[in-house]
Protein backbone atom coordinates (compact mmCIF):
# COMPACT_ATOMS: atom_id res chain seq x y z
CA UNK A 1 0.00 0.00 0.00
CA UNK A 2 2.76 2.36 0.95
CA UNK A 3 4.68 1.62 -2.20
CA UNK A 4 1.55 2.17 -4.29
CA UNK A 5 1.01 5.55 -2.71
CA UNK A 6 4.64 6.38 -3.27
CA UNK A 7 4.56 5.45 -6.94
CA UNK A 8 1.34 7.43 -7.38
CA UNK A 9 2.95 10.46 -5.81
CA UNK A 10 5.95 9.97 -8.03
CA UNK A 11 3.75 9.74 -11.13
CA UNK A 12 1.97 13.00 -10.34
CA UNK A 13 5.16 14.81 -9.54
CA UNK A 14 6.44 14.29 -13.10
CA UNK A 15 5.46 17.76 -14.35
CA UNK A 16 7.63 19.27 -11.65
CA UNK A 17 10.77 17.88 -13.27
CA UNK A 18 10.20 19.83 -16.45
CA UNK A 19 12.01 23.06 -15.84
CA UNK A 20 11.21 26.21 -17.76
CA UNK A 21 13.22 26.57 -20.97
CA UNK A 22 16.19 28.79 -20.30
CA UNK A 23 15.92 31.95 -22.38
CA UNK A 24 18.73 32.40 -24.90
CA UNK A 25 19.62 35.84 -23.68
CA UNK A 26 19.98 36.92 -20.12
CA UNK A 27 17.47 39.68 -20.55
CA UNK A 28 14.52 38.95 -22.87
CA UNK A 29 13.19 42.51 -22.65
CA UNK A 30 16.47 43.98 -23.78
CA UNK A 31 16.78 41.35 -26.49
CA UNK A 32 13.33 42.29 -27.79
CA UNK A 33 14.34 45.94 -27.90
CA UNK A 34 17.54 45.02 -29.72
CA UNK A 35 15.64 43.00 -32.28
CA UNK A 36 13.16 45.79 -32.89
CA UNK A 37 15.93 48.33 -33.52
CA UNK A 38 18.07 45.93 -35.53
CA UNK A 39 15.22 45.22 -37.92
CA UNK A 40 15.18 48.90 -38.88
CA UNK A 41 18.90 48.92 -39.58
CA UNK A 42 20.81 47.75 -42.62
CA UNK A 43 23.67 45.32 -42.39
CA UNK A 44 26.61 47.06 -44.05
CA UNK A 45 28.10 43.85 -45.42
CA UNK A 46 25.10 42.13 -46.99
CA UNK A 47 23.20 45.25 -47.72
CA UNK A 48 19.80 43.72 -48.37
CA UNK A 49 19.70 42.10 -44.97
CA UNK A 50 18.77 43.81 -41.75
CA UNK A 51 21.14 43.97 -38.83
CA UNK A 52 18.79 41.60 -37.01
CA UNK A 53 18.87 38.91 -39.65
CA UNK A 54 22.45 39.03 -40.85
CA UNK A 55 25.07 36.46 -39.94
CA UNK A 56 27.93 38.65 -41.14
CA UNK A 57 30.64 39.13 -38.57
CA UNK A 58 30.31 42.88 -38.60
CA UNK A 59 26.58 42.55 -37.94
CA UNK A 60 27.31 40.35 -34.94
CA UNK A 61 29.80 42.89 -33.65
CA UNK A 62 27.35 45.71 -34.12
CA UNK A 63 24.58 43.79 -32.39
CA UNK A 64 26.91 43.15 -29.48
CA UNK A 65 27.81 46.83 -29.39
CA UNK A 66 24.15 47.87 -29.45
CA UNK A 67 23.35 45.36 -26.71
CA UNK A 68 26.12 46.71 -24.52
CA UNK A 69 25.00 50.26 -25.02
CA UNK A 70 21.41 49.35 -24.16
CA UNK A 71 22.63 47.64 -21.01
CA UNK A 72 24.47 50.84 -20.17
CA UNK A 73 21.11 52.59 -20.31
CA UNK A 74 21.27 54.32 -23.68
CA UNK A 75 17.96 55.11 -25.36
CA UNK A 76 16.98 53.77 -28.79
CA UNK A 77 17.58 57.20 -30.31
CA UNK A 78 21.07 57.36 -28.84
CA UNK A 79 21.92 53.92 -30.18
CA UNK A 80 20.71 54.85 -33.64
CA UNK A 81 22.73 58.05 -33.48
CA UNK A 82 25.81 56.01 -32.53
CA UNK A 83 25.40 54.04 -35.75
CA UNK A 84 24.53 56.93 -38.05
CA UNK A 85 27.52 59.01 -36.96
CA UNK A 86 29.72 56.10 -38.02
CA UNK A 87 27.95 54.64 -41.01
CA UNK A 88 25.74 57.50 -42.19
CA UNK A 89 22.03 57.50 -42.93
CA UNK A 90 22.67 54.52 -45.17
CA UNK A 91 22.20 52.21 -42.17
CA UNK A 92 18.60 53.36 -41.80
CA UNK A 93 16.01 51.54 -43.83
CA UNK A 94 13.74 54.55 -43.32
CA UNK A 95 15.72 57.56 -44.53
CA UNK A 96 15.15 60.73 -42.48
CA UNK A 97 13.26 63.64 -44.02
CA UNK A 98 15.89 66.28 -44.82
CA UNK A 99 16.98 68.38 -47.83
CA UNK A 100 18.88 65.60 -49.63
CA UNK A 101 15.93 63.24 -49.30
CA UNK A 102 13.16 65.70 -50.19
CA UNK A 103 12.99 64.35 -53.72
CA UNK A 104 12.88 60.78 -52.41
CA UNK A 105 9.99 61.45 -50.06
CA UNK A 106 8.06 63.93 -52.18
CA UNK A 107 8.84 62.36 -55.57
CA UNK A 108 5.75 60.12 -55.58
CA UNK A 109 3.52 63.11 -54.79
CA UNK A 110 5.23 65.05 -57.55
CA UNK A 111 4.58 62.30 -60.06
CA UNK A 112 0.98 61.96 -58.88
CA UNK A 113 0.49 65.68 -59.45
CA UNK A 114 2.12 65.48 -62.84
CA UNK A 115 0.01 62.51 -63.91
CA UNK A 116 -3.12 64.12 -62.52
CA UNK A 117 -2.62 67.37 -64.38
CA UNK A 118 -1.85 65.51 -67.63
CA UNK A 119 -5.05 63.54 -67.14
CA UNK A 120 -7.02 66.73 -66.48
CA UNK A 121 -5.65 68.36 -69.61
CA UNK A 122 -6.47 65.30 -71.71
CA UNK A 123 -10.04 65.13 -70.35
CA UNK A 124 -10.58 68.83 -70.94
CA UNK A 125 -9.35 68.54 -74.47
CA UNK A 126 -11.75 65.69 -75.18
CA UNK A 127 -14.69 67.59 -73.68
CA UNK A 128 -13.94 70.64 -75.78
CA UNK A 129 -13.80 68.41 -78.84
CA UNK A 130 -17.17 66.86 -77.98
CA UNK A 131 -18.70 70.27 -77.45
CA UNK A 132 -17.54 71.32 -80.88
CA UNK A 133 -19.18 68.28 -82.47
CA UNK A 134 -22.57 69.06 -80.92
CA UNK A 135 -24.78 70.77 -83.49
CA UNK A 136 -25.73 74.26 -82.47
CA UNK A 137 -27.42 75.20 -85.67
CA UNK A 138 -31.16 75.84 -85.12
CA UNK A 139 -32.05 74.29 -88.42
CA UNK A 140 -30.11 71.11 -87.71
CA UNK A 141 -31.75 70.82 -84.31
CA UNK A 142 -35.20 71.16 -85.85
CA UNK A 143 -34.34 68.52 -88.42
CA UNK A 144 -33.15 66.18 -85.69
CA UNK A 145 -36.33 66.71 -83.66
CA UNK A 146 -38.39 65.96 -86.72
CA UNK A 147 -36.51 62.76 -87.40
CA UNK A 148 -37.03 61.64 -83.80
CA UNK A 149 -40.77 62.43 -84.02
CA UNK A 150 -41.15 60.43 -87.19
CA UNK A 151 -39.55 57.43 -85.60
CA UNK A 152 -42.03 57.57 -82.76
Amino acid at each position, binding site marked *: MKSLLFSLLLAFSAPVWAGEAIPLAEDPVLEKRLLKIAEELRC*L*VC*QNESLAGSHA*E*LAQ*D*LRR*EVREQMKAGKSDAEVIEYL*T*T*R*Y*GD*FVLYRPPFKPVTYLLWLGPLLFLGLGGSLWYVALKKRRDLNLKKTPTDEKQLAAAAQLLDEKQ
Partner: protein
Amino acid sequence: MKRWIPLLLFAVLVGFFAKGLFLNPREVPSPFIGKAAPAFTLPVVGDATRSFSPEEMKGKVWVLNVWAPWCVSCRQEHEVLMALVQNQLAPPIVGLNWKDKDREAAMLLAQGGNPYFAVPDDLSGKVGIDYGVTGTPETYVIDKAGIVRMKHVGPIDPDIWKKKFEPKLKELGV
Protein backbone atom coordinates in the same frame (compact mmCIF):
# COMPACT_ATOMS: atom_id res chain seq x y z
CA MET B 1 6.95 62.91 -83.14
CA LYS B 2 4.43 61.97 -80.47
CA ARG B 3 4.89 58.26 -80.90
CA TRP B 4 8.57 58.52 -80.04
CA ILE B 5 7.84 59.77 -76.52
CA PRO B 6 7.42 56.29 -74.93
CA LEU B 7 10.66 55.13 -76.51
CA LEU B 8 12.41 58.24 -75.24
CA LEU B 9 11.10 57.68 -71.72
CA PHE B 10 12.23 54.07 -71.93
CA ALA B 11 15.72 55.18 -72.96
CA VAL B 12 15.91 57.53 -69.98
CA LEU B 13 14.86 54.70 -67.67
CA VAL B 14 17.45 52.35 -69.16
CA GLY B 15 20.02 55.10 -68.63
CA PHE B 16 19.22 55.26 -64.93
CA PHE B 17 19.32 51.47 -64.56
CA ALA B 18 22.62 51.22 -66.42
CA LYS B 19 24.16 53.84 -64.16
CA GLY B 20 22.85 52.01 -61.10
CA LEU B 21 24.18 48.70 -62.34
CA PHE B 22 27.75 50.00 -62.56
CA LEU B 23 27.80 51.74 -59.19
CA ASN B 24 29.72 50.00 -56.44
CA PRO B 25 27.22 49.31 -53.63
CA ARG B 26 30.06 49.13 -51.08
CA GLU B 27 30.98 52.71 -51.89
CA VAL B 28 28.81 54.16 -49.14
CA PRO B 29 29.43 57.87 -48.61
CA SER B 30 31.39 58.25 -45.39
CA PRO B 31 29.91 60.64 -42.84
CA PHE B 32 33.46 61.42 -41.66
CA ILE B 33 34.59 63.41 -44.69
CA GLY B 34 35.36 66.90 -43.40
CA LYS B 35 35.15 65.78 -39.78
CA ALA B 36 37.81 64.98 -37.20
CA ALA B 37 39.24 61.47 -37.34
CA PRO B 38 38.01 59.56 -34.26
CA ALA B 39 40.61 59.33 -31.53
CA PHE B 40 41.92 56.03 -30.22
CA THR B 41 44.92 54.53 -28.47
CA LEU B 42 45.92 51.00 -29.36
CA PRO B 43 48.95 48.79 -28.76
CA VAL B 44 51.22 48.35 -31.72
CA VAL B 45 51.78 44.99 -33.42
CA GLY B 46 55.22 43.57 -32.70
CA ASP B 47 56.03 45.98 -29.89
CA ALA B 48 53.89 45.60 -26.81
CA THR B 49 55.56 48.54 -25.09
CA ARG B 50 54.47 51.02 -27.73
CA SER B 51 51.02 52.33 -28.46
CA PHE B 52 49.68 54.44 -31.28
CA SER B 53 47.22 57.31 -31.26
CA PRO B 54 46.23 59.60 -34.17
CA GLU B 55 47.36 62.50 -31.96
CA GLU B 56 50.93 61.59 -32.89
CA MET B 57 50.26 62.45 -36.50
CA LYS B 58 49.12 66.04 -35.91
CA GLY B 59 50.87 68.35 -38.34
CA LYS B 60 51.32 65.61 -40.91
CA VAL B 61 49.17 64.43 -43.76
CA TRP B 62 48.81 60.69 -43.34
CA VAL B 63 46.96 57.66 -44.61
CA LEU B 64 45.03 55.20 -42.46
CA ASN B 65 44.81 51.83 -44.13
CA VAL B 66 42.48 49.29 -42.51
CA TRP B 67 43.66 45.78 -43.31
CA ALA B 68 43.67 42.29 -41.88
CA PRO B 69 45.84 39.21 -42.32
CA TRP B 70 42.76 37.15 -43.22
CA CYS B 71 41.80 39.54 -46.01
CA VAL B 72 42.78 38.28 -49.44
CA SER B 73 42.55 41.51 -51.39
CA CYS B 74 44.73 43.16 -48.72
CA ARG B 75 47.62 40.99 -49.91
CA GLN B 76 47.48 42.45 -53.40
CA GLU B 77 47.21 45.86 -51.88
CA HIS B 78 50.15 45.13 -49.62
CA GLU B 79 52.47 44.86 -52.63
CA VAL B 80 51.19 48.16 -53.99
CA LEU B 81 51.76 49.87 -50.66
CA MET B 82 55.25 48.38 -50.43
CA ALA B 83 56.16 49.80 -53.82
CA LEU B 84 54.74 53.22 -52.93
CA VAL B 85 56.69 53.41 -49.69
CA GLN B 86 59.93 52.08 -51.19
CA ASN B 87 59.78 54.72 -53.89
CA GLN B 88 58.84 57.36 -51.32
CA LEU B 89 55.67 58.22 -53.19
CA ALA B 90 53.36 58.09 -50.20
CA PRO B 91 52.97 59.96 -46.90
CA PRO B 92 53.19 57.85 -43.72
CA ILE B 93 50.71 54.98 -43.89
CA VAL B 94 49.30 53.66 -40.64
CA GLY B 95 47.97 50.12 -41.00
CA LEU B 96 45.13 49.41 -38.62
CA ASN B 97 45.20 45.66 -38.07
CA TRP B 98 41.47 44.90 -37.87
CA LYS B 99 40.13 41.91 -35.95
CA ASP B 100 43.23 39.78 -36.29
CA LYS B 101 41.97 36.93 -34.11
CA ASP B 102 44.59 34.49 -35.30
CA ARG B 103 47.41 36.93 -34.41
CA GLU B 104 49.11 36.64 -37.78
CA ALA B 105 49.93 40.26 -38.55
CA ALA B 106 53.46 40.32 -37.12
CA MET B 107 54.43 37.15 -38.99
CA LEU B 108 52.91 38.37 -42.24
CA LEU B 109 54.69 41.71 -42.08
CA ALA B 110 57.98 39.99 -41.28
CA GLN B 111 57.58 37.82 -44.36
CA GLY B 112 56.25 40.28 -46.92
CA GLY B 113 57.81 43.50 -45.66
CA ASN B 114 56.25 46.25 -43.64
CA PRO B 115 55.09 49.35 -45.51
CA TYR B 116 53.53 50.85 -42.41
CA PHE B 117 54.61 53.72 -40.21
CA ALA B 118 52.82 51.96 -37.36
CA VAL B 119 50.45 49.01 -37.06
CA PRO B 120 47.87 49.59 -34.30
CA ASP B 121 46.26 46.36 -33.21
CA ASP B 122 42.44 46.56 -33.20
CA LEU B 123 41.62 43.07 -31.99
CA SER B 124 38.02 43.75 -30.93
CA GLY B 125 37.31 45.75 -34.09
CA LYS B 126 35.90 48.65 -32.10
CA VAL B 127 38.19 51.30 -33.55
CA GLY B 128 37.29 50.08 -37.03
CA ILE B 129 33.61 50.49 -36.17
CA ASP B 130 34.35 53.99 -34.86
CA TYR B 131 35.70 54.79 -38.33
CA GLY B 132 32.69 53.25 -40.05
CA VAL B 133 34.64 50.36 -41.52
CA THR B 134 32.42 47.77 -43.19
CA GLY B 135 35.15 45.50 -44.52
CA THR B 136 38.83 45.43 -45.32
CA PRO B 137 40.60 47.05 -47.02
CA GLU B 138 39.45 50.61 -46.52
CA THR B 139 41.70 53.63 -46.65
CA TYR B 140 41.36 57.14 -45.26
CA VAL B 141 43.37 60.25 -46.05
CA ILE B 142 43.74 62.49 -42.99
CA ASP B 143 45.09 66.02 -43.12
CA LYS B 144 47.47 68.00 -40.90
CA ALA B 145 44.67 69.09 -38.60
CA GLY B 146 43.42 65.54 -38.15
CA ILE B 147 40.41 65.95 -40.46
CA VAL B 148 39.35 63.02 -42.66
CA ARG B 149 39.56 64.20 -46.27
CA MET B 150 38.89 61.09 -48.29
CA LYS B 151 37.84 57.48 -47.98
CA HIS B 152 38.50 54.70 -50.40
CA VAL B 153 36.72 51.35 -50.17
CA GLY B 154 38.48 48.32 -51.62
CA PRO B 155 42.10 47.59 -52.46
CA ILE B 156 44.35 50.34 -53.79
CA ASP B 157 46.01 49.60 -57.11
CA PRO B 158 48.56 51.84 -58.87
CA ASP B 159 45.85 53.30 -61.09
CA ILE B 160 43.56 54.20 -58.18
CA TRP B 161 46.52 55.69 -56.33
CA LYS B 162 47.35 57.90 -59.29
CA LYS B 163 43.79 58.98 -60.03
CA LYS B 164 42.27 59.24 -56.59
CA PHE B 165 44.99 59.63 -53.98
CA GLU B 166 47.64 61.70 -55.72
CA PRO B 167 45.38 64.67 -56.55
CA LYS B 168 43.97 64.67 -53.01
CA LEU B 169 47.42 64.49 -51.43
CA LYS B 170 48.70 67.27 -53.66
CA GLU B 171 45.73 69.39 -52.65
CA LEU B 172 46.66 68.82 -49.01
CA GLY B 173 50.23 69.85 -49.64
CA VAL B 174 52.19 66.60 -49.77
